[in-house]
């Protein structure tokens, strides 16, 4: 590990150590934050008890569907906009301002259209996450070095093989950052929707525990959600690394 890596590990360990010590000595009241070790303990207990299995599977399947739809849909739409510049010019201001729009205002409308249940949440999260993928796709395709395209023409590559061998690999770093954002935004969309407008799911259970001052459950569930998000990001990151190494970067 590099020097920076060692320091980073030290900083993180020191941070959690300090929080742990402050909580255990009572400087930080357990009404506010419970000790990190207690959070882990609570998470393990909650998972072992199976009490929240239904909520977990509901939330994760919603996130999974929203994520896949937004990644595939965002990529396709990004490519379409890239090939049709007039369309893209029209939608540019919309895309740029998209993430400051209050999406949850449209939730009642979605309920009327799609009915109660997981469906409106999935649509909401997909709409929320897709634009990140569209923008990443556009960014990636825009930044393909000119020289690579010239090389492709020199080698007389057909369009499919140009896309497969030149365009996609060159745009890959941007596509991956879009992928990571789409995952995060799917989580935000589903969990925020469950917070305010649902009667089941992890987001609802977190809000329910918060309302009941049940800090152990709340922190346990929060930690669980964060762990899943982090694990997924690390997997994408590791794959990205491997890809970069293959190319000798």
């Amino acid at each position, binding site marked *: 590990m590099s020097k920076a890596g060692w320091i*980073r590990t030290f900083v993180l360990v020191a941070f959690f150590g300090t929080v742990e010590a402050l909580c255990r000595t009572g400087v930080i009241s357990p009404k506010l934050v419970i000790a990190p070790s207690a959070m882990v303990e609570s998470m393990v207990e909650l998972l072992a008890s199976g009490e929240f299995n239904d909520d977990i599977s509901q939330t994760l399947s919603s996130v999974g569907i929203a994520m896949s739809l937004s990644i595939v849909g965002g990529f396709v739409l990004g490519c379409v906009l890239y090939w049709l510049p007039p369309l893209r010019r*029209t939608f540019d*201001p919309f895309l740029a301002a998209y993430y*400051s729009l209050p999406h*949850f205002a449209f939730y*009642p409308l979605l309920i009327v259209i799609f009915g109660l249940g997981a469906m409106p949440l999935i649509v909401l999260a997909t709409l929320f996450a897709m634009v990140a993928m569209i923008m990443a796709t556009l960014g990636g395709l825009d930044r393909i070095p000119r020289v690579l395209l010239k090389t492709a023409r020199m080698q007389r590559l057909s369009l499919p093989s140009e896309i497969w061998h030149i365009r996609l690999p060159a745009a890959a770093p941007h596509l991956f950052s879009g992928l990571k954002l789409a995952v995060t935004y799917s989580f935000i969309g589903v969990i925020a929707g469950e*917070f305010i407008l649902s009667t089941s799911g992890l987001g609802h259970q977190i809000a329910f525990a918060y309302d009941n001052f049940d800090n152990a459950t709340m922190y346990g569930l*929060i930690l669980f959600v964060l762990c899943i998000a982090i694990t997924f990001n690390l997997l994408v990151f590791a794959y990205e690394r491997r890809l970069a190494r293959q190319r000798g970067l």
Partner: protein
Amino acid sequence: MTAIRSLRGPLLLTVTLLVAWQILHQWAGDTALTAPLPTLEYMWNMIGQKRFLPHLVETGLAFAQALAIAGLGGVGIGVLLGGHRLSGEVAEPILVGIYSLPKITLYPVILLLFGLGMSAKVAFGALHGVIPVVLFTMNAVRNVNRTYLRTGRAMRLTPAQMGWHILIPATLPEIFTGLRIGFSLTLLGTMLGELFASQRGLGFLLMTAIDLNDVQTILSIAVLISLFAVAANSILLAIDRRLHRGSAA
């Protein structure tokens, strides 16, 4: 002529959205979606009402404070981390990690730490906005062309002159891009913060309207916030493009 050209995209988009809105209204009916014209009229009336103003002020204040914290704090931390190579290397992966977390899950924690009310919204908004500002500022400071610095030293500039004539013009375009992204995310964070456990503000009005299924109010607030977001974003984007063009020349 060029003015008409540059306005054509946004105009087309506005017309498209209005038409889509009208069609959706015809399809879904008044209980889900009121027609565009009555809604805009209602919005205009709502802005004029006395009971509306305190909510607008509350949200505006929360947003302004969060933005100030995110902007000033982000640039400050970014300059420090960019100036000191090792601490930058230590901090960057941690920051990127926090950036990609679904922060909405942390909102109950923020509520416990800051209590109900203004400070929790400000903290949640600032938490969303600060990290992109830090990341962009850090990279801007890190990537200042060494030749500029050497030239400055050759001309024996004082540190103040060095900052004013070299560092600020060299880093400003990137920092501004960070601030633009920070602006959108801070707005998102503040709005999300107002949706849960809030007693005042536009987000609170929105939630009450959702509970009552008061479609006109829901749409009016959504349109109002969207208009603000799109307008602010377009202005910032225009400044951003101008700054970047200046630096490229």
